């Protein structure tokens, strides 16, 4: 005689349990979708780049599938590969993807070319979206880059990240009797005092200088464009830009480890985790790894702060990524159900509890569980990040980054810093060259200058 809850019976019970559990977790979704299994037989193709949050979503997919009946193929290649694929697919209005990541640097290009679906109607429709989805809970600074020129929302943010300054060996700074650098002048003073102490180089940064250098460009009173997104005339040859370039290149030349201009993000993180380099500016997702007791040798000496203030003020870099629906998708309603599940308060809360370090919902950022995980050796990474995002939303200085022609200028900035650090050109020559090349590239791209 078969025992109860064995074999098929037991599997069936477990399945029902998963559905009931998922429904209990996302009650609004189930109610708004008109009950479970609404999308039986639908296959959704989702693609993002590989990152912590998409990895969690991939683990939790059975929950969504059990809840809605839809089957999900979730593809998450590396960042550049994803962007190339998505750019090609979106530009051809293809239907290969139903949900995509709206990549920060491509957001204006993808949104304003009409390659994505506006989400406002889905959000307003009570049959498709429960009230507790609460779109206003997402940081305004994170929603801004997901909004088109038409004022409509095209992506729901899953990460809002800020560029912060870190010192992996702050003990050396304290030993020198100095505080965490607050200004660009302080930074040089501190680096002079600690550079090469105990064989620790002073400063290094990801060689994507179109991202890591720009806070300094702004801090010195310069900018990338005259007034993005309306006036895209490049302003890379101004005295302020040249001064910023000279200052920044000098940080790498005087205080950088050998081969500083070849460092990529993971190398920078590794160098700081091993205590080979003291200072950097990096995104909080990278910096949070310095608090990993299993791999970080600097967990007890690390300290974080906002990027330094210059003569013109403080301008931290921020980046936002969201989930959107391609214009060519044939399963838009089911795709919205997926986005809504993936970024519901329950799912993002669960992610934060699992250690996710860069949420875009205010309720998650303010939650005690998140705050407790983000305090590393006394530094509140989340607080610093939130202040940076608020600052960026107030000043609007990140608007340069989402214009469709920024990739062309971004590369000119990368080259300009490399040329100065490697001694091929002076700061003036390098930035004048970057200016001339940027103008040529922008004209070629059809930008009205």
């Amino acid at each position, binding site marked *: 005689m078969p025992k109860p809850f064995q074999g098929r019976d037991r599997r069936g019970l477990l399945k029902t349990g998963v559905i009931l559990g998922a429904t209990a977790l996302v009650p609004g979704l189930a109610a708004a979708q008109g009950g479970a299994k609404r999308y039986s037989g639908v296959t959704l193709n989702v693609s993002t780049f590989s990152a912590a949050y998409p990895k969690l979503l991939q683990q939790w997919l059975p929950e969504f599938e059990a809840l809605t009946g839809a089957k999900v193929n979730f593809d998450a290649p590396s960042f*550049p590969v994803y962007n*190339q694929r998505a*750019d*090609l697919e979106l*530009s*051809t*209005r293809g239907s290969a993807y139903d949900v995509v990541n709206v990549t920060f640097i491509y957001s204006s*290009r993808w949104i304003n*070319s009409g390659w994505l679906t506006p989400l406002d109607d889905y959000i307003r429709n009570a049959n498709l979206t429960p009230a507790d989805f609460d779109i206003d809970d997402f940081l305004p600074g994170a929603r801004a880059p997901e909004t088109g020129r038409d004022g409509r929302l095209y992506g729901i943010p899953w990460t809002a990240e800020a560029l912060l300054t870190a010192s992996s060996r702050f003990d050396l700074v304290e030993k020198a009797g100095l505080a965490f650098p607050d200004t660009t002048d302080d930074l040089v003073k501190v680096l002079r005092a600690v550079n090469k102490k105990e064989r620790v180089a002073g400063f290094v940064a990801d*060689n994507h200088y179109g991202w890591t250098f720009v806070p300094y460009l702004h801090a010195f009173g310069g900018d990338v464009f005259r007034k993005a997104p309306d006036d895209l005339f490049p302003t890379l040859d101004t005295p302020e830009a040249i001064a910023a370039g000279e200052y920044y290149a000098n940080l790498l030349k005087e205080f950088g*480890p*050998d*081969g*500083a*201009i*070849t460092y990529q993000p993971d*190398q920078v993180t590794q*160098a700081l985790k091993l205590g*080979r380099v003291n200072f950097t500016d990096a995104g909080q997702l990278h910096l949070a790894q310095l608090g990993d007791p299993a791999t970080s040798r600097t967990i007890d000496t690390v300290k974080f702060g906002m990027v330094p203030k210059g003569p013109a003020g403080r301008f931290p870099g921020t980046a936002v990524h969201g989930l959107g629906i391609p214009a060519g998708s044939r399963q838009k309603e089911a795709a919205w159900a997926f986005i809504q599940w993936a970024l519901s308060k329950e799912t993002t809360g669960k992610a934060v509890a699992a250690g996710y370090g860069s949420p875009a919902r205010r309720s998650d950022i303010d939650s005690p569980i998140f705050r407790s995980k983000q305090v590393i050796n006394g530094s509140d990474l989340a607080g610093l990040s939130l202040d940076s995002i608020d600052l960026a939303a107030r000043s609007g200085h990140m608007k340069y980054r989402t214009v*469709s022609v920024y*990739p*062309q200028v971004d*590369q000119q900035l*990368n*080259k300009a810093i*490399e*040329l100065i*650090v*490697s*001694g*091929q*050109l002076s700061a003036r020559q390098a930035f004048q060259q970057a200016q001339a090349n940027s103008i040529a*590239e922008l004209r070629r*791209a*059809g930008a009205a200058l």
Partner: protein
Amino acid sequence: MAHAVSASGWQIERHRSFLIGLSPSLIVLLLITLVPAAALVMTSFTPLQLTDPSGTFRFDDPLVNYRQLLHDDRFLASIAVQLKLSASSVAMQTGVGLGLALLLNGKSRVLEGARTAFLIPMVLPPIVVALIWKIMYTPDVSPMHRSLEALGWPVRSLIADPDTALWAIALADTWQWFPFTMLMVLASLQMIPDDPLEAARLDGASRWQLFRHIVLPYIRPVLVVCCLFRLIDSFKAFPLIYVLTNGGPGSVTEVTNYYGFIQAFNFSYWGYASAIATVMLVGVFVLSWLVGRMGWSEHDSR
């Protein structure tokens, strides 16, 4: 006469059978080689860019990309970089491959083992080779830099210095591909008949004279084919540059292939990138034809 006619008829039948037998593979070959190449050339005549899909099939000014290339300093500089990289890496690969093949040409278990060991770099995936050299060229973690420092000869990062970055790429490329030349030359060396070598030895020829007058003429066609293969392949250099230098510092390692990649994948100028690829294709064809015309690949008839 009747016999001659039937023989010729048999020949025609034979050719026809060969053609029928080969036709499926010829059709597949045409589809997978010529069709993409034709698509590339067609695209190069359009202003296609992803942000403006209306340019996909526009042929109103088919030479616009090619005219622009003539005035694109970065493209012209990339050709110079490409030629430097190709010439230096092919020369080094041929020299090292030939030298090691001559040293390892013999019959012993040690030599056999050494021959196998030297083949390893060639069978590694290019991206793995790039990562190996990324470690080698990062002074903080590089065993090469640490050893040199311990010996009192500290060396600055080779890929961050504009004077050495291209050489560093050429060195890594040589490490990966010298086994190809070595393998081909070894095969050729083992085919050299013993008689002329023994005769020359009896006549008192030195080792250099043996190499110069017997071995080299014999292996020359193989060496030329190796150079040609490696030259063509050097135009496809990508993973090493992508991982090690990203075309920098500045533009000192930005080869034509990499510049085309940037135009297509960073800026979305697919028409322009296709024109760059087409120019490279024509360049490689012309180079191959020139090498063939020079007659170096034929055995010395003297």
